[in-house]
């Protein structure tokens, strides 16, 4: 009896490892990006651009892709994350914590974004479709104008804290951190988001999210507590965004301006990336982030000033011709082949 139980168990753990095979291509992409940046230092700035877009897509996808709810105010979570880093550094730079203050910043950014997502989630997630989209725009804009109007956290002048970083860690360390480690963190956040995505997909959570994305009322009747799962996805996605904002903006630029970090354009970029790669898939945001980042970089270099003029029709063609994105389309093609095990 006991040995039978054991064999079942070990078999299950093998199955469990197999469940995580689809992470291989995603982590492959991130590792490759990192290596390219290390080997060719002149490529580092491109790598950081791509890393940011991959991370943005990967984090946003946990909510937008998996639930189908369009959060136009998503950038607010990145913005708050950036403020979290700014405030964290500001309050702790004289404590002698040295590079520890960066982790205080990241955690504060994470907490602030999570807190906002709890509040927004509790109220706005009761709305559906267009109403939700509009409400989230309202939250984002409202936040920005509250900061500017009430002169909160430096108001429209923002916060600048390069000096505080220098004081806490010295010039040398500060330089390495803002030009190198901030970007490495971004890749790490992308990787964490990817892991969470797959974990959700393979558990009950993923089934619940698919069901509510397709038909919320039917999902309820099937016994799914849709509110719980929506809020879970929302908070997860927002906390990743908080960390992303803290590192890729707050830490990297050493300043925060409300007009920059609440710019709705970033939300739209995130949506484009997810749609391009395949909403609700694991590999999609990475593929979409690469493709979007590269074409943006390339169009900007080739057609300075008119890159958006070229880009707009491209988005439209993609929406009409490939509404399921690269990975969505690919997944259909490889159904029943060995590759299926590696793509999710």
């Amino acid at each position: 009896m006991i040995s039978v139980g054991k064999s079942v168990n070990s078999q299950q753990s093998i199955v469990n490892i197999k469940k995580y095979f689809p992470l291989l291509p995603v982590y492959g992409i991130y590792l490759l990006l990192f290596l390219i940046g290390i080997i060719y230092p002149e490529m580092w700035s491109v790598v950081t651009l791509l890393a940011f877009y991959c991370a943005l897509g990967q984090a946003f996808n946990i909510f937008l892709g998996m639930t189908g709810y369009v959060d136009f105010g998503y950038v607010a979570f990145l913005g708050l994350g950036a403020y979290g880093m700014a405030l964290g550094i500001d309050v702790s730079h004289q404590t002698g914590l040295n590079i520890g203050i960066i982790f205080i910043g990241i955690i504060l950014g994470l907490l602030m974004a999570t807190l906002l997502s709890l509040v927004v989630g509790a109220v706005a997630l009761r709305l559906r479709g267009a109403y939700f989209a509009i409400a989230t725009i309202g939250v984002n804009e409202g936040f920005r104008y509250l900061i500017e109007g009430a002169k909160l956290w430096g108001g429209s002048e923002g916060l600048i804290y390069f000096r505080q970083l220098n004081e806490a860690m010295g010039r040398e360390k500060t330089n390495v951190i803002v030009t190198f480690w901030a970007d490495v963190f971004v890749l790490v956040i992308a990787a964490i988001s990817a892991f969470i995505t797959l974990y959700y997909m393979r558990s009950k959570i993923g089934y619940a999210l698919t069901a509510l994305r397709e038909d919320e009322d039917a999902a309820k009747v099937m016994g799914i507590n849709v509110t719980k799962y929506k809020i879970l996805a929302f908070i997860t996605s927002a906390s990743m965004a908080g960390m992303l904002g803290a590192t890729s903006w707050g830490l990297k630029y050493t300043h925060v301006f409300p007009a920059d970090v609440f710019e709705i354009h970033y939300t739209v970029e995130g949506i484009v990336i997810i749609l391009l790669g395949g909403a609700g898939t694991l590999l999609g945001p990475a593929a979409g982030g690469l493709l979007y980042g590269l074409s943006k970089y390339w169009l900007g270099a080739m057609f300075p000033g008119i890159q958006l003029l070229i880009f707009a029709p491209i988005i439209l063609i993609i929406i009409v011709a490939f509404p399921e994105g690269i990975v969505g389309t690919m997944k259909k093609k490889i159904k029943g082949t060995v590759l299926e095990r590696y793509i999710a």
Partner: protein
Amino acid sequence: MLLQQLSGNLTQGLILGAIYGMATMGLNLIFGVMKIVNVGHGAFIMLGTFVSFAIFTYLGLTPIVAIPLAFIVGFALGSLFFYFIIGKLTNAPELNSLLATFAIGMLIEEVTKFIFGSEWRGFTWDVGRVTLPFTVLPITKIYAFIISILVVIALYLWLRMTRSGTALRAVVEDKEGARVCGINVDRMYALSFSIGIGLTVMSGVILTFFISVGLNPYMGGAYTLRAFVIAVLGGLGSPLGAFFGGVIFGLVENGSYTLLSLIPGIEPFSLTRFVTFFILLIILLVRPTGLLGVK
């Protein structure tokens, strides 16, 4: 003194509100019929302001001429975008249609920038002014007010009195029912999108009667956001509700600006915008179907 300033501002607010309302009717018409939110809405308002600008500056004609012209331009563009893009997305998830309308807006902005450049533009169209006890009103603003109201009445009559208007209302009420009754729903989609865009571009012209400076390819974003607030205020999907929502919005915006200016140590302009978004959220929470309940 404050009372005088307040009534002056409220008069301005009323006029601006009528324009805002008129400028939101297209958004609501499209949403009411197709359940698609036009995220590129503001770009079409911007397009209208440039039609007005071009007519006045390059052709030397009165911007009144630009009103029908802008409607025709908008209607044609609306049909074009519907035929090639929006019409193919009527059954797609929200995500696709939202992004598509955003990209369409972006296209309009970039084409405008390509033609006119990205610097701020403006023109002065002066046909005199009227002095009221508490404020002075340029006659162009009065034109804007009257024309906005005429457009609302025209839309109302079209929706109530004509066959196509009635068919459109039927689609808003119950799409499947309308289909069963032999209404060509897809044609109604195309019609509502084209008319919606036509109205929106036209509203841009009327906006220049109120403020004819500060025109820029990227000026639309702020109007998109305002239109969302107004649309929700009046009830998403109700074109006439949008008008009254606009009037209320204009009054609130002007009134709160006047009051917030009295508080020291803050930025009244930004805080006014905060107030409007705060109102939006409260309405969405309390009565997402709109405050006014106009059908």
